[in-house]
């Protein structure tokens, strides 16, 4: 018990330990303690989706999870999705090909949401993409190209999966 707590979690495959304030959110832990600033903070109350990361594979708002709640668990952030040799993830490629960002602030959150969305639904319709991505806001209003990017990424991931089998 205490307002400072021990946390130990695995972020992008790397084990991290720290003593932090109980009120420190996972988002702040990733940014301040892990120096992984790809996870962005927009609204800090769950509405914009900019802080979305994967917690044990599930997309969550890292501004609504306390770091201590993520203890003993695995986190994946935008920094952890490219291949080891630095080559882009198919989602990153697709976003880039579709010009799916302007300032880029919302992009990490969109990508992390899309990762779980496409894992569950590898061949989504346009309407399903629109609904699935509706929890993320883009202040530059680049929605059209973002949705195109997710659509293209779905095709790339399906091709990739076929290539492997």
């Amino acid at each position, binding site marked *: *018990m*205490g*307002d400072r*707590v021990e946390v130990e979690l695995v972020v992008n495959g790397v084990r991290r330990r720290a003593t932090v*304030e*109980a*009120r420190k*959110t996972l988002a*702040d832990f990733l940014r301040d303690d892990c120096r992984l600033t790809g996870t962005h903070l927009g609204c*800090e*109350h*769950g509405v914009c*989706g900019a802080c*979305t990361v994967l*917690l044990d594979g*599930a*997309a*969550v*708002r890292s*501004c*609504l*999870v*306390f770091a*201590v*709640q993520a203890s003993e668990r695995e986190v994946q952030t935008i920094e952890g999705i490219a291949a080891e040799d630095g080559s882009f993830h198919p989602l990153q490629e697709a976003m880039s090909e579709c010009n799916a960002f302007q300032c880029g602030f919302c992009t990490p959150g969109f990508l992390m*949401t899309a990762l*779980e*969305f496409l894992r569950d639904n590898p061949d989504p319709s346009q309407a399903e993409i*629109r*609904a*699935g991505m*509706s*929890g993320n806001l883009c202040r530059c209003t680049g929605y059209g190209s973002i949705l195109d990017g997710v659509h293209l990424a779905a095709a790339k991931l399906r091709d990739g999966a076929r290539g492997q089998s």
Partner: protein
Amino acid sequence: MKPPPFEYVRAESIDDALATISELGDDAKFLAGGQSLVPLMAVRLSWPTHLVDIAGVAELSRIAVTDSGVVTIGAATLQRTVERSAAIAAVCPVLPEAISHIGHFPIRNRGTVGGSLVHGDPASELPLCALALDAQLRTRRADGRERVVDARDFFVGPLMTDLEADELLLDVRIPAWPSGAGWGFQEFSRRSGDFAIIAVLTMLRLAPNGTVDEGRIAIAGAGPTPLRPPEAEAMLAGERAGETLFVRAGAQVAESIEPHSDIHGSVRFRRQLAASLTERALADAHRRVQLDG
């Protein structure tokens, strides 16, 4: 906007959670998925001294479905788990359908069934389901006293439920869906995933001659709690199911509610919305009715 400081305690069991909360006093709170509590803390509307985290208590996140179709869901069960449960979809398909309208999937990945019921937002889907499905909520206090509260008595006002500060919601029990009954769920929100402006859940069970044996209408977003307008429900019984009846029931619902007005819609708009969503939800229920035998 950062949440104010608090002390964190992880509960290992139901008994542990209850003992801890009663020891810590009135300013301690349970933390489940945090999808309502953490935003409230971030905007400084809630300032608990201690949070007792119940998310990891395995006894609180069990789903059970009996052979006769009675569903029991532990309070800390994730909304996403219920949404994806084939066992629940088989006996109570309206529940996963309604839950799929809660926020966005990353919210449902953390939000729990109990957290939503206890939070008691009048526009929320789970309180609406609990009321429409005649659910019973089981609770326990630190001294071991248990209660079973009907959903009708559980929601007492906007964000107010019939629960003491040291009382833990254990589970929610949903009686078997009446055989052959059809259901409808209709929601209007400004954008996919937003809170409902109005949501309506209906149930229809018909006699072999096509008249209504039992009809239920529950509505969210139309008052301080989810509602079951008694006049509109009474109006269905014994009548021939069909468009004429559904339009009359919708008009009755619009008349019996006292919605509020805000930038998302006037009282008049909400009444009209309630009427048309009721009509549509009743038509959906009618379409899904299976006559016995």
